[in-house]
């Protein structure tokens, strides 16, 4: 299973920093994901520092693997200081440690209970209550869940459940019940909604309930969606041994998922081997890059090195929505969860002619850099096969 995770937030009205803090990290080698959402006491900078410290420390504790999540959360719970003014703890938190096979451990201290949805129904998981040894009024809940394909987990800060508190319509705020109604309606309307869209939707709805749309607390929603991974394949560069062209073209044809070809020679090779004609766009270049071409059964066909170099640049600078071949490739990559590269090792001597006005990168190096950034910054699973 692939875990689609995202968090959306809005700040408390008139504040310039978020008082809630979300952090998540994927560990591809262990097929594992850890995420923490923390709500700092008060708002603004002070809350930001408190929640940021709690969340990052908890993540560091858990990821090390030396202490289990239960122990890590207990240490934090027992050591969080008490605010002198309000006599409550400095921050609250929810943390999840889960893997691609669906087993998950969750701890919650002070945050609203998370919502677990399976087949459009809210599940009621069992939990264990762990009492703090140092503070009488502090306890945390520990859950052990086995998740299935299609399950969703929704975590939020109390800014969501208390949205609209004291207003005419919802005297007690949105509350958990109200949030569940919103969720169920949205999921009925759009059963395959991504975590990014769903968390954005919930945050917007919570904000709309607030008087004058001015949130009285920080609002954060984090959604995890366990689903089938969206696979994609990028075929770039001709294979080193030409006699293997047919074999690799067949692998490309048989791949289940989205497909892209990056490279003129490569496109010709696939076209020849699979007997599928190539159609060009009616323009020659868009935005200093050769324009795309089209082939039946292939989602994107672009030129090679120049487009890949530009794509890497866009990925590094977070540039999206550009209407050229590289912009389309960025969208293609970001719309996938598992990205497979098939990289041909054959070099074109002409690319290294000193007479060329610009330096052309070596394909292998660009792909290596691209794979690293897709993994570390965009949390994709990436594999590279050299041909």
């Amino acid at each position, binding site marked *: 299973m692939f875990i689609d995770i995202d968090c959306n937030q809005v700040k408390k009205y008139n504040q310039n920093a978020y008082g809630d803090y979300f952090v998540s990290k994927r560990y591809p080698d262990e097929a594992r994901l850890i995420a923490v959402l923390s709500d700092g006491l008060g708002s603004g900078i002070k809350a930001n520092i408190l929640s940021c410290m709690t969340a990052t420390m908890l993540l560091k504790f858990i990821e090390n693997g030396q202490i289990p999540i239960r122990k890590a959360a207990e240490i934090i719970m027992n050591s969080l200081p008490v605010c002198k003014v309000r006599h409550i703890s400095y921050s609250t938190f929810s943390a999840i440690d889960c893997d691609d096979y669906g087993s998950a451990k969750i701890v919650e201290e002070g945050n609203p209970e998370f919502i677990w949805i399976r087949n459009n129904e809210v599940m009621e998981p069992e939990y264990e209550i762990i009492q703090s040894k140092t503070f009488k009024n502090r306890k945390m809940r520990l859950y052990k869940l086995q998740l299935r394909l299609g399950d969703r987990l929704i975590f939020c800060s109390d800014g969501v459940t208390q949205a609209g508190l004291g207003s005419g319509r919802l005297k007690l705020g949105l509350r958990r019940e109200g949030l569940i109604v919103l969720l169920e309606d949205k999921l009925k309307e759009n059963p395959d909604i991504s975590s990014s869209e769903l968390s954005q939707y919930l945050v917007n709805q919570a904000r709309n309930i607030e008087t004058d749309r001015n949130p009285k607390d920080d609002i954060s929603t984090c959604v995890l969606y366990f689903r089938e991974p969206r696979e994609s394949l990028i075929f770039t560069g001709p294979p080193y041994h030409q006699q293997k062209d047919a074999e690799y073209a067949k692998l490309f044809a048989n791949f289940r998922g989205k497909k892209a070809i990056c490279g003129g020679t490569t496109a010709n090779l696939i076209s020849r081997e699979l007997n599928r004609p190539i159609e*060009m766009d009616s323009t*020659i270049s868009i935005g200093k890059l050769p324009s795309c071409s089209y082939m039946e059964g292939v989602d994107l066909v672009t*030129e090679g090195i120049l487009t890949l170099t530009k794509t890497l640049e866009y990925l590094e600078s977070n540039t999206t929505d550009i209407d050229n071949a590289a912009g389309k490739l960025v969208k293609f990559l970001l719309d996938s969860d598992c990205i497979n590269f098939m990289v041909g090792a054959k070099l074109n*001597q002409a690319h290294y002619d000193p*007479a060329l006005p610009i330096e052309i990168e070596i394909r292998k190096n660009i792909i290596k850099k691209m794979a690293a950034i897709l993994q570390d910054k965009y949390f994709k699973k990436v594999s590279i096969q050299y041909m």
Partner: protein
Amino acid sequence: MEKKISVKVCLGTTCFVMGSANLQELIEMVPKKYGEKVEVTGVPCLGLCSIDWEFSKAPYVKVDEDVIKEATVEKVLKAIDDKLAAMN
């Protein structure tokens, strides 16, 4: 039906950096000048630079089967004119 002259502009990496991006003009100019008689399209790669690389004659354009090396708009137009003259 009259046979069309096909003009193929190589949009492979080498040709593109060596100037085929500047041949965009042809896409607009040729239909205006020659109407239906000539068809201009880009192609992903003509595969010529890898054979001819030592001489670095990119960008390449093919007018029917004739290869134009170091192609410019003028050279391509001249090649089309010559073809049309030969046909008449």
